């Protein structure tokens, strides 16, 4: 496997590629997206793992794409800071290819991989998606050009936002070499309200009502597992406990958990599956009840961002993904883990946007060598 330990090496490796190449970071999400073409060469970015800058006073950092997210978080935490991105960092598996290479590399997901797949966790409720935290990006284009967009400051509108375009593009527009990121203060105190219910509609209605209130929770999730569900609402900061207690007092059966790391780790784990499938579904907030009901009917699990309308539905191996998709229509459904077990893991693109996306792909990768075919619409 070709590898790179500098941006220049990465650029040279991409430029030298004669056939399809596919960037690889921690190898935890290689099974996502459609299958790459036979013979696609993986380009290992884990040698590009430096923290180029950590400007603690400015709450910003510039890091290379192959840096492990867990390593970065430990480094930022030493300064009382965090990168507000908390997707599951381990591998889910489910893709035959992963296991053949011994599964996920030790150390877990890299920042480049998280950004290339636009993955996120419960903190997205308050801090946004990768697109909202990336301030700038250095990308290697398919001809080996090293191109930069954005900047290192938290506010900047100079030039086109190519970084947003590349975020979530699954390596099909360019290979991410480094990113500059906005950081946030790491809260010293947390408290989580856990409000259980075994009635999907009731959970969903409570979520919609709470979403309309100015709670300023840091995380706001729904869970469904084994016929039981819960709302999880996390508060940070000096008044975390009284704020949690006030909300818990309004919800029947709710309790406040102060040592809440495990609750949230469990929630993140529901976003991955070693066997079976994980479907990401986007709905209005008022559509969450339907997602819970459909998942429950198919023996599935749900981890949902209740204030955002994003759900990760886990299904056991052998589940009828097509039926679940039909039941959730018209909500777009992307199959993440287990992508290769369905005919097309991506939702249908509308004809107009598909044409525009193809035009973007042709402009950025005229040779068609960057992860061809793995993305939505067969791009």
């Amino acid at each position, binding site marked *: 496997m070709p590898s790179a330990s500098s941006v220049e090496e990465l650029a040279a490796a991409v430029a030298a590629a004669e056939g399809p190449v596919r960037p690889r970071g921690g190898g935890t999400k290689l099974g996502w997206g459609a299958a790459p073409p036979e013979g696609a060469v993986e380009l290992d970015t884990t040698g590009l793992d430096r923290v180029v800058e950590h400007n603690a006073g400015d709450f910003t950092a510039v890091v290379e794409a192959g840096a492990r997210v867990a390593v970065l978080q430990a480094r930022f935490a030493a300064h009382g800071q965090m990168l507000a991105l908390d997707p599951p960092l381990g591998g889910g598996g489910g893709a035959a290819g992963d296991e053949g290479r011994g599964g996920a590399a030790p150390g877990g997901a890299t920042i480049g991989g998280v950004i290339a797949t636009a993955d996120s966790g419960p903190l997205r409720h308050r801090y946004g998606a990768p697109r909202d935290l990336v301030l700038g990006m250095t990308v290697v284009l398919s001809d080996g*050009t090293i191109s930069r967009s954005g900047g290192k400051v938290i506010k900047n*509108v100079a*030039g086109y936002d190519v970084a947003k375009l590349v975020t979530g593009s699954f390596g099909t527009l360019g290979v991410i070499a480094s990113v500059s990121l906005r950081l946030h*203060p790491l809260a010293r105190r947390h408290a989580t309200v856990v409000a259980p219910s075994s009635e999907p509609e009731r959970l969903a209605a409570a979520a919609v009502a709470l979403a309309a209130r100015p709670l300023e929770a840091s995380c706001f999730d729904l869970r469904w597992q084994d016929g039981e569900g819960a709302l999880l609402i996390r508060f940070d900061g000096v008044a975390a406990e009284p704020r949690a207690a006030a909300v818990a007092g309004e919800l029947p059966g709710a309790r406040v958990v102060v040592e809440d790391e495990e609750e949230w780790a469990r929630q993140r784990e529901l976003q991955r599956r070693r066997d079976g499938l994980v479907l990401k579904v986007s709905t209005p907030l008022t559509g969450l009840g339907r997602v819970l009901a459909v998942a429950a009917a198919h023996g599935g699990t749900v981890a949902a961002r209740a204030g955002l309308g*994003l759900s990760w539905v886990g299904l056991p191996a052998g589940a009828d993904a097509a039926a679940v998709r039909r039941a959730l229509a018209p909500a777009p459904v992307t199959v993440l883990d287990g992508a290769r077990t369905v005919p097309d893991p991506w939702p249908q693109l509308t004809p107009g946007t598909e044409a525009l996306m193809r035009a973007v792909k*042709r*402009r950025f990768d*005229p040779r068609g060598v960057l992860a061809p075919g793995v993305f939505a619409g067969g791009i």
Partner: protein
Amino acid sequence: MDQAVMGGGERAAGVPGALVDAFARIVGAAWVVTDRQALRTYESDGLLHYATVPAVAVLPGDGAQVQAVVRACADAGVPWVARGAGSGLSGGALPVADGVLIVLTRMTRVLDVDLPNARVCVEPGVTNAAVTRAVAPTHFFPPDPSSQIVCSVGGNVAENSGGAHCFKYGFTTNYVTGLDVVLPGGERVQLGGPELDAPGYDLLGAFVGSEGTLGVAVRAWLRVVPVPEAVRTLVAIFDHMAPAGEAVSEIVGAGIVPGAIEMMDSPAIAAAEQIAGAGLLDAEGRAPGAALLVELDGPREECDGLFDLVAEVCRRCGATEVRLARDEAERERFWKLRKAAFGAMGRISPNYFVQDGVIPRTRLAEVLERIDALQREYGLTVANVFHAGDGNLHPLVCYDAGVPGQARAAEELSARILDACLQAGGSITGEHGVGVDKKKHMTKMFAEADLEAFQRLRCAFDPAGLANPGKVMPTPRLCGEVPGPYRRHPLEEAGLAERL
């Protein structure tokens, strides 16, 4: 600096008569402006140093009319510029002399308010403030440029507008979930929608902030958020800028994220007080050296706890006085002081340039020193008003256009302030956009390879180069054909290939 130098003159120009006739058929003759005097209304946006009279202005009434107008322009190969309220500060809506100006001020309908899902759908001519009005009193739309009473959502989308509250809440791009867009070829596509994470590339993210060069939005889905439970506002007064800057660093460094944290220097306070009357002048009418406006919003317990801490930090850093807004009226006076600063500058200086540079917050002191040295070197006054939390400076470079050479000196001084921002690791623009005004500075911030990637994006949307040409990029560029395996038949490539 006269208009001929900066604006490209007032060359009489035209578009084919058949195109004007087509516009009249699409929108009705009453909404097509060809009279030269009437067209002068549109010769500039909020940046009055630049003026170009368009050949024709068209005021469509809905998205279908916008699409028909853009398609007619595409068929005729005529460039066009979209304009909202015209309050932009970078010349982004400066017309093209031989082109069409598409004015969106008639499209002011709020199409849908869906509070359970925290969404609003509006036409592009709806003002920023009207979005918040539509969802009040329970919700609000966070991006709040100083011009929010007049500026339009379409313009906010084009410029990725910020405002005083974006340190905590983020920018326009964080609140637009979908756009209904007419592409420069005349196709209409929906990027994103009311829900998050539409499949495929984040074209929405690329479009917001593209300054009208990728197409024109005819409908926008916006995310609104619940109004915070409590708001606490204070103004801290300092003898100098340096201790005020120190207070900002201490507050942010302590992990506090204020809703807004704004700083003004003495000349800015003196000017703004003439309008605001917030009571910051001393008995002799002199302004203090610096004022810091800090607003905390959020849950009551949290706000109350942190507010005392902020006041204490200000005092410890040398604030001579800390005034807490006792009621909404006082809070409004504090904010008027901040928001009046630009307008008030006209009272103390015949002319001024506004800059929009950004620096890492920790470099504030040194950059302010640099600006101070520059204003002494040039013998001109620079008033400073800025969003201190995110390091977005708005130096107002005062000059008198009636004094020969002073405008040019002021422009040079402005450029050197931007150089200082870039040397500190910052940006040439935080919220006003590049437009026509700052495109000459783009090469200081971006290398050729960077600009070339920008051009790839632009060409994917607008291969014929008809949408807002002459903006953003430092030099005019054409879109070449796409080489490689995806290349189509040459005839198709020349005609329809990119339009699909």
